[in-house]
Structures are given as structure tokens and as C-alpha cells.
């Protein structure tokens, strides 16, 4: 297999490599007589990017036999592309034969230097096949990368995951979105409660799709998707460099999302290459955090007995797979675990938002059963529901953080120390509910 590129195509190729390097470590190259495909998968297998180039993209392109493939470390390819693309006259890549151990990358520079790299191929390439039909996604949005960059600029740069909540522009859902009027999309920072419990800064951004997006399609119930920001930002730079808009396809939490560049109509070069980024989303919906604070509240209001029970629950949960924070989340929201198994039975206790209930039932299927607590937490749950009708995420997390900090029953000396913990954890919670009786 051999191909050679120069000029703008080389710039696009270099940009593609940089984007793939921000997703995964290994570059898999698959060459067929008509097209070249590059893909990378990240370590946690939650992000997959593939880019395809038609043979017309290249100055010269030849594949012997039906197919050729190899895989190399992306770090090595990035070393090759350290030379500024502007100083390269043309570059050619050659795989001498199907079982060659090294791929040859040759660059002729304008300065007269000729640089030849031989990169060792990985012995067992991890070749993935993934094709998602874009038409299966009911919802989508198109946004200019600069705009999206600007919107994301409102969030902490160290933020790892973000939640996008999409609502139907035509309806007025009974949740917080109605207060914001017309702003059908919300971006919300996602903070993993299992990591340090530090949740210092939470950000919510309500967006009017007609102002910020070029296109927006969503009908039906509000949905939310939570996914990693790192790969999104990499793809954003890629699209910006290609002068294309970002087309985001989604369905709902737990289903993957797909991103692709959307080229302008008159852009001829767009036909010769295409890129797709698929990201996994968190299983559990973030839309129902309003009902979660009761563990802390139960913990605080109860005396030693109930307190111990609640205290032990977080302990148990924490023993579970730490990365499975989605499970932990939903268990907490189920009024400390009891309800998780019989979600549908207990739900009638929760007064208020039927919308939330229905979705939470689905969520409950995911969580494990926690230890059976007494009804006290449940009752307080309902009480708290009405109170925390439009609870801010931050308040919720504050409460949850408390329960995490109180993992060890030994922390539970007396109520006084609980108060201290509360104060230490979050300044956000103005009126700690620990004085309520249930």
C-alpha cells in the first residue's frame, strides 16, 4: 500500500492524526482500493473515532490486493508530523507488503531535507468495526465550532464530563426549563461524586437553539446525555480546522452519540473525506437529581440507629465498582437503596412530578438492591421531594457528598459532628435539612 499527499490534503491529514491522537493511543489504518480508513479507540472504550479518505483525496494512491491494514502508535505518527506542515512539499507513506514490520513515511521539505521515518507496526492490531446509521438518531443539532467553543468556555477548563439536556422547543415541560423560557437546551457540568466528592464548581447554561445552533431537532420528552468533554474538544478543533460545522446526533442517556463534520454546500473537498466520532454516554439520566438529597437528610435527622444504617449503605455502595458511579447515583436517589429493587412499588410515595417518576423507573433497573432500610428514609424522601422540587444540582450534590463523607459509622459520634461535616463540605446548602423530623 502506498499513498502520497501534499498541500491542503496534507494539512487535513495532519489535523486528522492530531485529533485521533487525542482520542486513543493506537492508530489503525485500513486501506481498500477505493478508500483509506483511520480509526482510534480510547482506553476505556468509550470513544471511537474513524476518518475515511477517498482515493481521490491523495495525489497518488495504490493498494495491492483487496485490502491492507496495519496499526502503529499515534505518538510515533505525531513525532513524524512534528515538522511543520507548511515546510513539507509532499509526504508519502508506504507499506511494502502485507506482513511488513515497518511503515515508511517519507517527507520532502522545501528546505531540501528529505526525512524518512520507519515506524514499527503493532503486532496485533486492534481493528474495530463500527458503523452507526445516522438516521437512527431522532435528535440532532448543528453548531459552528467557534460557537460551541464559546459555550464550552463557560465551564471550568478542567471539567471532564458534560451533560446536554435537550427539550422539545415547541412544548413547555414542567421542569426547570420552563422558567428559562424558550431556551430549550441546557448544558450542565457533570461531577463524578465518587471522585473526591469535591464538586466545587457547578455550571448550568441554558441555550436558545435558534440563537446558538444552526439546526436543532428534538421532539418529545426531555432527554439528557452525559459524555466526556475531552474528545468533544478534540473534535471541535478538528472541525474548526476543516472549516466545517459540527453535527451532533443523539438519542437519550445510555445511547451513544455521534458527531460528524458538516461541510458547506459548495465545499468540493468535503466529498473526499469524512470523519465520525462516537462517544458513549452515561447510563443514568441526570434529569432527576431533585429527589436525591434524602440520604443525608435521613442520616442527619435520624439518631444513631438509622444513622448507622444510612452510614453503612454508602459504605456498601462505595465498595462497588467505583467507576460505576451511575449505579451509586441511582441508588441514592431511590431513597437509600430500598426502593431501587422495587422502584415501581415505592414510587407512589414520591409526590409531585410524574415525568420524573417514569424515567426513574427505567433507571432503577440498573441499580443494585441496597440494604433494606426502614421506611423512615422513604418517608423523608417524599417530604424532601416536595421541598426540593426545583433543586439545584449543586445542593443535591452537597447532600450526597455528606453521605459519602460519613461512610464510616465511626464518624457518627453525635449530631454535633454531623453538623460540622456539613459545614465543611459545601457552603452551597443554605438550610441543612437535618432538623426535620419524619
Amino acid at each position: 500500500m502506498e499513498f502520497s499527499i501534499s498541500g491542503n490534503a496534507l494539512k487535513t491529514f495532519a489535523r486528522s492524526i492530531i485529533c485521533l491522537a487525542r482520542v486513543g493511543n493506537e492508530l489503525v489504518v485500513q486501506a481498500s482500493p477505493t478508500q483509506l480508513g483511520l480509526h482510534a479507540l480510547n482506553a476505556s472504550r468509550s470513544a471511537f473515532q474513524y476518518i475515511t479518505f477517498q482515493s481521490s483525496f491523495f495525489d497518488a494512491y495504490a493498494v495491492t490486493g483487496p485490502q491492507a491494514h496495519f496499526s502503529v502508535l499515534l505518538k510515533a505518527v505525531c513525532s513524524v508530523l512534528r515538522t511543520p506542515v507548511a515546510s513539507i512539499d509532499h509526504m508519502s507513506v508506504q507499506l511494502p507488503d502485507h506482513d511488513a514490520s515497518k511503515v515508511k513515511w517519507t517527507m520532502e521539505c522545501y528546505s531540501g531535507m528529505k526525512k524518512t521515518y520507519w515506524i514499527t507496526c503493532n503486532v496485533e492490531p486492534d481493528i474495530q468495526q463500527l458503523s452507526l446509521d445516522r438516521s437512527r438518531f431522532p435528535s440532532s443539532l448543528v453548531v459552528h465550532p467557534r460557537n460551541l467553543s464559546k459555550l464550552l468556555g463557560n465551564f471550568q477548563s478542567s471539567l471532564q464530563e458534560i451533560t446536554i439536556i435537550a427539550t422539545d422547543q415547541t412544548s413547555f415541560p414542567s421542569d426547570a426549563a420552563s422558567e428559562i423560557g424558550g431556551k430549550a437546551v441546557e448544558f450542565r457540568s457533570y461531577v463524578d461524586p465518587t471522585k473526591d466528592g469535591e464538586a466545587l464548581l457547578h455550571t448550568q447554561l441554558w441555550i436558545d437553539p435558534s440563537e446558538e445552533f444552526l439546526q436543532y431537532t428534538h421532539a418529545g420528552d426531555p432527554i439528557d446525555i452525559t459524555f466526556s468533554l475531552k474528545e468533544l474538544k478534540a473534535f471541535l478543533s478538528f472541525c474548526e480546522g476543516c472549516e466545517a460545522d459540527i453535527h451532533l446526533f443523539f438519542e437519550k442517556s445510555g445511547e451513544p452519540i455521534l458527531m460528524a463534520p458538516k461541510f458547506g454546500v459548495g465545499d468540493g473537498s468535503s466529498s473526499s473525506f469524512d470523519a465520525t466520532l462516537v462517544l458513549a454516554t452515561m447510563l443514568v439520566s441526570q434529569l432527576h437529581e431533585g429527589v436525591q438529597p434524602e440520604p443525608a437528610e435521613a442520616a442527619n435527622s435520624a439518631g444513631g440507629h438509622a444513622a448507622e444504617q444510612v452510614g453503612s449503605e454508602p459504605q456498601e455502595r462505595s465498595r462497588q465498582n467505583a467507576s460505576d458511579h451511575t449505579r451509586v447515583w441511582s441508588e441514592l436517589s431511590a431513597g437509600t437503596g430500598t426502593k431501587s429493587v422495587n422502584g415501581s412499588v415505592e414510587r407512589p410515595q414520591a409526590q409531585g412530578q410524574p415525568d420524573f417518576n417514569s424515567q426513574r423507573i427505567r433507571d432503577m433497573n440498573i441499580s443494585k438492591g441496597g440494604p433494606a432500610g426502614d421506611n423512615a428514609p422513604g418517608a423523608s424522601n417524599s417530604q424532601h421531594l416536595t421541598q426540593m422540587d426545583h433543586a439545584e444540582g449543586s445542593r443535591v450534590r452537597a447532600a450526597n457528598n455528606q453521605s459519602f463523607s460519613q461512610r464510616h459509622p465511626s464518624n457518627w459520634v453525635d449530631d454535633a459532628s454531623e453538623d460540622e461535616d456539613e459545614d465543611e463540605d459545601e457552603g452551597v446548602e443554605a438550610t441543612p435539612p437535618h432538623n426535620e423530623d419524619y
Partner: protein
Amino acid sequence: MSSSPAIEPYTLDLVCQLDNVQGMVDALACVRWKRQQDALVELSEHGIVLIVEESGCLQAKVYLQRELFTKYEYGAEGRPKFGISLGLLVDCLNTFSSPGHSNTIEIKYPGPDMELLLKSVDTLNSCIYSEIRTRIPETNAWDYNFEQAGTAPLTFTVKSSALKEAIDDLEWPGSILQISLQKSPPCVTFRGEGHGDLQIDFMYYANTDLLLAFHCDTDVSYGYKYKFLKATTANIPGNVVRENRGSKLTIGRGGMLKVQHLVSVAKAIAPQVESAGYQPPSRIAYIEFFVKPEEPADD
């Protein structure tokens, strides 16, 4: 025959003045590849030479000949030598230099306790003054005894920026860098092998700007430790690289490599005056690196 200690304060070994401290800083910075380096300074009637060494395999010399200085009064008998910390000297000289100006400095040796004395002499109302401790050098600088390889020199001159770029790129394979000169077609090749391989070819006919000179009558190839070759280009200051003069590389007997750079020490301001044909060639400092080959008898 040593220089007399300054019991007679009016007979110093050296009093000299330089009207562009930054040029001297640039020249000395080229040979600063470690934070802490001891340098050997040798004074003579011809100028100042500063020598830095590492592990017996790499030596660098900075020649600041007397024509660089606006004043050079040499009063010693013989050639006084002293040891000094290179980092300290460069950092100290840097304080005398302000960006955008050409600052004049006066250097005297020895001070009352054998120090090197520096003083700013271009400002009327203020003065910067420094004394740097020197040491008695324990050993003489290793004489690398560079000799021509054969009947004709094996040498090529390449643009400094291209050389630096090539050596920077060769960091990837690392370890040993093989330099080969090929007589026909005239070509210089740098090659490194490691977890991956990289070869950079400088072809004489590829671009008239790249290889400015090339002399080779037999094909040769020698390997050098990458880290030493990197030291020869890594610390050339940016402005010097941008000037993009030629760097000359010569392979001597046994594969000893000599790398030479030129650093301009001319005054930064008033270029019009200088460009009236009068750019004295001696306003250039010479930097020389000697690198021992890895396998001395390799060919």
C-alpha cells in the same frame, strides 16, 4: 610565569570593553547544555577562550578574539587560566544586558582575590558592578587534537536552522546518531535507529540553500551519542538561529567530529552605519564543539 596577583593594582592581566554584552551572552549560551557547568577561561593577547567539557566525549570552545572588543589591554605574561562557573557567568552577564539596547561592559581580571570583575560603563548615573569568584583550574583542558582525516578534509556546511531542526527531529529514535558523508551523489545523511528509525538526507543538489559547502573524497560514516550532538545545537539562542548562518561540520581522523557555529557580536543598533560595507568580519564569535565518535574505528 604565572600572572602576578594583583599586588600592583595598576597592572591587571586584562582590561577590556565590549559594546554589546548580549552578543557575548548569546555566544556563551550556545555551550550551556547543563545547569551547572564549570568552564575554563584562558586569556591571551589574541582574545578570550572559554572551554567547557563533558565526560571526556564532548568539548566546546568559545573564541572571543580581541577584535570583538572596543578596548583590549593585555598586561599579563603568559596565558592566565582560571575556572569559573559558566551558568553564573552567563546569568551575571545577562543582568548587564537590557533588551533593545547595546550595553557596554568592562571586564577586568584579576580582582584583589582573583575574581573576574564586570562593570557597566555606558550609564552616567548608575553602575552595575559584579565580582565573580574564580578557581584555580585543576587540569588542563583536554586537547582534542583534531586532525584532518585523510588527504582532503571531510566537511560540509549547512544552514544552522536546518541542522538544529534535523537534530531535534532525531530525538525520536534517540541513542546513537549516525552521520554519513557520501561522495557521489554528494549527500550527507543523519540516521538514528531505535524503536523506530529516522533518516534525514541533505542532498547537495536538492537545494542550493541547504548545503552551502561540501567536500568529501571518500565515503565515511560514524556514530555519535545523540545527547552530545544535541548539545551542539540545542542551546543556540533563537535570534542566532534566525540569522541562519552556516554551521560547518568536519570529520577528522578517527571520526572526531567538529561542529562550528558563528555568532554575531556586532552592535544591535545603527545597522545603517555598519552596512556601509563595513561589517567587520571579526565581530563574530566562533563556537566549536568536538564530539568523540562512539565507535572510533567505525567505517
